């Protein structure tokens, strides 16, 4: 049974798909190397490349892909690479695209990490990073506020949001050891329970 599942997902590579896999690899290498500032910038680039230029997937499927990438964990870029790779050239396409999109990051960051400490030892660089630290705080806060503006403002959302902010601030300031992963899990359970309860209530209402 398990073997069947694995075989269904990972078939042996076909000869005919080599060319497609290589061009997927190159396309994602390029996307990995030129997308600054997170997933959403990359989505526009991917659409131009795969929907308009190469026509490997159509617009509707692309929109589906974005929705899937957003609602599964992990970086959007990785999710998109795996999905587009799989739909155009199967398992090996997915593997090739995912590796390709990571390679530029890996090479650039690994190289920087080798010199970073020496780089920071320079007084000017250290001063620059004092300023940059302020900027990082601003970027994180403004990203959060942007998402907050788009969030649905129903009671459950507002309660969960406020509880998460309060819990996380307290955890940090009082140095409590409690992983934020549990907060995410609590959120999922709350969402599911609210949905189940409201469904049960509306069914009860119908019966009357």
């Amino acid at each position, binding site marked *: 049974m398990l073997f069947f599942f694995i075989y269904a997902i990972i078939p042996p590579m076909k000869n005919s798909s080599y060319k497609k896999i290589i061009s997927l690899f190159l396309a994602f290498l390029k996307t990995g190397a030129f997308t600054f500032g997170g997933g959403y910038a990359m989505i526009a680039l991917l659409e131009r490349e795969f929907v308009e230029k190469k026509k490997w997937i159509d617009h509707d499927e692309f929109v589906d892909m974005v929705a899937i990438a957003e609602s599964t964990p992990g970086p959007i870029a990785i999710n998109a690479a795996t999905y587009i790779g799989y739909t155009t050239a199967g398992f090996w396409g997915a593997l090739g695209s995912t590796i390709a999109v*990571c390679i530029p990051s890996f090479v650039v960051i*690994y190289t920087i990490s080798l010199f970073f400490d020496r780089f920071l030892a320079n007084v000017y660089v250290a001063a620059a990073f004092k300023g940059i630290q302020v900027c990082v705080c601003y970027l994180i806060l403004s990203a959060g506020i942007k998402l907050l503006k788009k969030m649905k403002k129903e009671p459950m959302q507002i309660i969960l949001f406020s509880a998460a902010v309060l819990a996380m601030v307290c955890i940090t300031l009082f140095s409590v050891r409690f992983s934020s992963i549990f907060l995410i899990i609590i959120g999922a359970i709350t969402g599911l329970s609210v949905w189940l309860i409201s469904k049960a209530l509306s069914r009860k209402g119908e019966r009357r």
Partner: protein
Amino acid sequence: MNLYLDIFLTFLKIGAFSFGGGYGMIAVIRDSCLSKGWLTEEELINFIAVAESTPGPIAVNMATFVGSSRAGVLGSLLATVGVVLPSFIIILIVAALIKNLLKLAGVQAALEGVRPVVIGLIIATGFTMTLKVIFNVSSLISAVGSFRFDLRSAGILFMLILVAVIWKKFKKKSISPILLIFISAVCGVIFYK
């Protein structure tokens, strides 16, 4: 536990629970790496700046950076594979077997609960980082008395907000994070040197 195994498993966990793009995972990275003593708050903030101003997903950049600084090239490779693997497997399953999984009402309901929590985590992380950078407060228990208001960083924050608001007003779009990081670096050199 073996350091390599620990790095791999930690980033596997981070990859599996980071919803909502790059900033969503910062809270998770932060409490994993800080509690293990792999990073200090200041190093973490520096890493975020580097990850933000180089190409590629922030998550992958952070994983490579932390892995490399803790355990060399093998560490960075393991961290990167770890952070990517959950996405890869989940998307493969979704694309291959259950394309409609995410349209199930139950899954959507759970995600409705996850979203506000993640937004809350991002804002709380930004808030506590600001406390640390501007007021030097990182903990209310251990750091009593070390409160120190940093006028220069508060000034930089004020300037950045001003620049971002003016930019949005005249250019009709948000200023790019990289340009903003560059401006703040220049401010840093002027104010702190």
